[in-house]
C-alpha cells in the first residue's frame, strides 16, 4: 500500500481531514477522562464495609427533654434490652456511627506522646461487646471486649479508653511488618495510652470518600457507650427477617419511651438503603459519564461515516479510473481504510496529549488522581477501531464503484 497518494489526496481535503482528526482528538481526551472518573467511582462503590450487610439495619435516635447529657445512659440500656429481646432480632448495638453513615469521630493516632504529627488518622466507634456480632465484622487476632469493660461516658467529657480494638489496616499502618496487638497507642493529646486487645479484619470509616480516602479502613473500636442527645442503633435481624424488624423495632422503641425523635428522613433504614444513599451521587456520576461517552463515540462515528461518504461520492470518477486501470476492489477498500487510519493516528496522537493535559488540569482543580496510561492506550485503540469500523461501509460502497464509471461524466 502506498501512502504517498493518500497523503496527496488528503492535502486536497485539508478542512475535512482536520475536522475528523480534531473530532477524534477531542473525543479521545474526553472519553479517557470520563472513563477514568467512572472507574474511580465504581471502585469507591465496590469497597467493602467489612460488615455482613444483609439482615442489617440502622436507627437514628435523638432524645427529647433530657435533663443532662448523662440522663440517656439508662434509656440506652433499656432500649438495647428491648431491641435484643425483640422477636426476629439477632443482636443490637448502640454506637456513635457506622460505615457509610457520613458523620462520626476522627482523630490522629500517636505511638508515643512526643510524636509531633500523628502516625495515622482513624475513626472512633464507641460500642460495646456486641459490636462484632451485630456488625458481622471478623476478629482476626486478640479478643473481643468483655461486658465488664464497657463504660458509659458523656461525649463531651470523653478522654480515653484503656482498651481498644483496631482494624488490620490501621494496625499495618501503625506497625508495618508486625501487629498492633498488645501494643499501646495514643488517641488524643495529653491522655494515657490505650492497649490494643483485638484486631478486626476490616471495618470502613463512616465517610465514603474525599478527605477520608487515605484512611478509609482505619477504624478504632472503643468499649465506651456514649450518652448525650444522639444515639445510633445498629440491629442485626435473624436471617430473612429484616423486613419485619424494620417495622417492629421503631414501634418497640416508641412503646418503651415516647420522648425521642426518629427523623422522618434517614431515621430508620436497612443497610441496603444506607449503601444506596451513600453512593447515590457516585453511581449517578458514573452513569452520566457513561452516557456522555456513548453519545460522544456515536457522534464521532456518525461524523466519520458522513464525511467519508461525501468523499466517496466526490471521487467516484477517480475510483472508476483506478478500477479501469486495474485496481482491485480490495485496493479501493484498503485505500479508504488506510486513509482513515492515517487521519485517526494524527487524531489520537493529539488526543492522547490532550487527555493527559486535561487530567493534569483536573488534578490541579479537583484533586483527581493521575490518569493511568492504560486508559489512554485503551482509548487510542477504541477510537482507531471506531474509525475503521465507521469507514467500512462507505469504503465498501467505494469498492463497488464499477470501472465503467471512468467513462461517465459525473
Amino acid at each position, binding site marked *: 500500500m502506498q501512502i504517498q497518494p493518500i497523503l496527496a489526496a488528503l492535502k486536497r481535503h485539508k*478542512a*475535512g481531514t482536520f*475536522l*475528523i482528526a*480534531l*473530532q477524534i482528538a*477531542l*473525543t479521545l*481526551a*474526553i472519553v479517557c*477522562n*470520563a472513563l477514568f*472518573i467512572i472507574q474511580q467511582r465504581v471502585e469507591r462503590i465496590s469497597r467493602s464495609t467489612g460488615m455482613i450487610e444483609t439482615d442489617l439495619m440502622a436507627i437514628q435516635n*435523638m432524645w*427529647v*427533654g433530657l435533663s443532662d*447529657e448523662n440522663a440517656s445512659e439508662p434509656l440506652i440500656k433499656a432500649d438495647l434490652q428491648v431491641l435484643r429481646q425483640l422477636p426476629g432480632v439477632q443482636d443490637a448495638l448502640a454506637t456513635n456511627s457506622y460505615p457509610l453513615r457520613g458523620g462520626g469521630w476522627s482523630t490522629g493516632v500517636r505511638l508515643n506522646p512526643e510524636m509531633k504529627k500523628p502516625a495515622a488518622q482513624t475513626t472512633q466507634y464507641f460500642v460495646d461487646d456486641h459490636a462484632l456480632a451485630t456488625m458481622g465484622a471478623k476478629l482476626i487476632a486478640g479478643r473481643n471486649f468483655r461486658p465488664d469493660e464497657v463504660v458509659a461516658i*458523656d461525649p*463531651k*467529657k470523653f478522654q480515653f479508653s484503656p482498651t481498644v480494638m483496631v482494624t488490620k489496616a490501621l494496625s499495618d499502618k501503625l506497625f508495618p511488618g508486625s501487629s498492633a496487638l498488645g501494643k499501646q497507642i495514643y488517641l*488524643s*493529646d*495529653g491522655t494515657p495510652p490505650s492497649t490494643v486487645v483485638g484486631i478486626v479484619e476490616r471495618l470502613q470509616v463512616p465517610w465514603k470518600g474525599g478527605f477520608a480516602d487515605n484512611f478509609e479502613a482505619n477504624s478504632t473500636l472503643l468499649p465506651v457507650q456514649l450518652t448525650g*442527645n444522639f444515639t445510633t442503633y445498629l440491629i442485626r435481624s435473624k436471617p430473612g427477617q429484616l423486613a419485619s424488624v424494620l417495622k417492629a423495632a421503631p414501634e418497640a422503641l*416508641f412503646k418503651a419511651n*415516647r*420522648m*425521642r*425523635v426518629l*427523623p422522618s428522613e434517614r431515621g430508620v433504614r436497612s443497610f441496603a438503603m444506607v449503601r444506596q444513599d451513600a453512593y*447515590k*451521587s457516585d453511581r*449517578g*456520576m458514573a*452513569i*452520566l*459519564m457513561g452516557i*456522555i461517552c456513548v*453519545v*460522544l463515540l456515536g*457522534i*464521532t462515528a*456518525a*461524523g466519520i461515516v*458522513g*464525511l467519508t*461518504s*461525501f*468523499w466517496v*461520492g*466526490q471521487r467516484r470518477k477517480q475510483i472508476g479510473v483506478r478500477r479501469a486501470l486495474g485496481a482491485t476492489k480490495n485496493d479501493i477498500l484498503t485505500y479508504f481504510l488506510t486513509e482513515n487510519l492515517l487521519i485517526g493516528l494524527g487524531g489520537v496522537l493529539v488526543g492522547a496529549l490532550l487527555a493527559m493535559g486535561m487530567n493534569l488540569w*483536573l488534578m490541579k*482543580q*479537583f*484533586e483527581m488522581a493521575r490518569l493511568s496510561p492504560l486508559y489512554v492506550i485503551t482509548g487510542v485503540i477504541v477510537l482507531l477501531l471506531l474509525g475503521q469500523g465507521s469507514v467500512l461501509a462507505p469504503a465498501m460502497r467505494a469498492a463497488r464503484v464499477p470501472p465503467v464509471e471512468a467513462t461517465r*461524466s*459525473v
Partner: protein
Amino acid sequence: MLGYYMLGYYIDLAWRSLRRSPGLTVLMVLAIGFGVAASMTTYSVFRAVSGDPIPWKSSQLFVPQIDAWGPSSRDSNGEPPDALTYTDAMALVHAHRAKLQSAMYRISPSLVPGQAGQHPINVSGHAVYGEFFPMLDVPFLYGSGWSADDDAHQAPVVVISGELNQKLFDGANSVGRSLSMDGKDYRVVGVMDSWNPQPRFYDLASSANFNAIGESVFIPFERGIAAGIYNSGNTNCHEPRTGPGFIGLQQSSCVWISYMALLDSSAAVSQYRQYLDGYAREQQRAGRFHWAPNNLLRDVPAVLDHQGVVPSDTRISLLVALGLLVVCLVNTVGLMLAKFLRRSGEIGVRRALGAPRRALYAQFLMEAGMIGAAGGALGLLLTGVGVMSVGWVFRPEIAALARLDWSLLGITMVLAVGVTLLAGVYPTFRAARVQPAWQLKSN
C-alpha cells in the same frame, strides 16, 4: 419587500436541501440536540449552586474572621478560623460597629406538639439577634422579627417558618400563640414567608451549603445561651476544653459562632477593618492573643468563593458536557462542509446566473439556522428530560435546586441556533468561494 421574498425563497431552498439528504440532516440535528441538552442540563445544576443567594446586597454583607488560635494552627495561606469564639463574638456584638449585625449559631431543638399522642419533632434553626431579619431582608407572612429589647431581655420569642406554621397552626396567623421547645414555652412573634437561600450564605461555617429544606425556627441568641440550647452546628477546637458542657464551650477557645455584618460603604468597611485590628491588638496587650492581629473581613461573594461551595461534581459534569458540545460542533462543521460542497454544481449555476456571494451566504446560513432550530427543539426536549432526572446524578439537596424555567429554555434555543450558525460559518464561506466557471466546465 424584496428582502422578505428572498427570505421565503431561502427557507424553501434550505428545506429542499435538508430533505434531499435526510440522513445527514438527522445526524446534525441529533448532534446539536444532544450536545446542547447535555450542556444545559448540567448548566441548570451549576447555575443553581453558583448563584448569588442575595444579589441585591451581597457585596454589603461581611463575615469577620478573628484569629483566636495563633500561627501554629494557620494553614499555608495564614487563614484564621472560619468562625468565632464566644468571647470574640460577644465583643463584636457589644461594640456594635456595623449598621446591622448578628452573631448566630445553629440549633436543633425538639418541639413537643400540643396534642397528646403525637411524637415530638426535631426542628432546625438558628439562634440570632433581632437585626438578622432586616439585615437579610427575611420575608414575613405574619408579624416580624423581634426588637433589641427582646434580645437584651433574653425574651422567649420565636420566628417560625411558614411550613412549621402550617404543621402546628394549620397556616393560621399564629403571632402571639406559643409553642414548646426543649421543654420551655416560646411566643411566636413572626411567621416567615418561604425563605431558604441557597447556598445558606449566612452560616457557611456551620451549615451544609445546600439544604433542600429551609430552617424552621429562629430564637434570640441570648435566649438560646441562657436556656442552654446547645450548638448543633460545627464546633472546631484547637486545644482541649477546660470546662464541661455548654458553659465550658462558651469559655473555651473553640470556634462555633458565625457572624454577619451589614457595611454599606467602603468607608464603613475600612472602619470595621480598623476596629477588628484594634480589637485584636487589645487582646494581644491583654495577653489573650500572643500574636499580631490576623483578621479577615470578606463579603458574601468572597466567602462563597473561598469556601468553594460549588461541588466539584457539578463543575466536572458541566465541563465534560461542554466538551461534548464542542465535539458535536466540530462534527456539525464537518457534515455541513460535506453537505454544502456536494452542491458545488448548483452553487456554480446560481453564481453564473448572477446570484451575489451575499445571497449564497444568506442561503447557507439560513440552512444552518434551520438545523440549529431543529437541534434546539430536540435539545429542549432532552433538557427537560435531563433536568427531571438530575436527581439520579447529584445529591438530592442539590438536584432539587435545578429548575426548568423560561430563561433556561431561552438559553437552550439561543445556544443551539447560535452554535449551529457558528458551525455553519466556515462551510458557508467555502461554499460561497466555489468558482462558477470551474463547476460549469466540469459538468
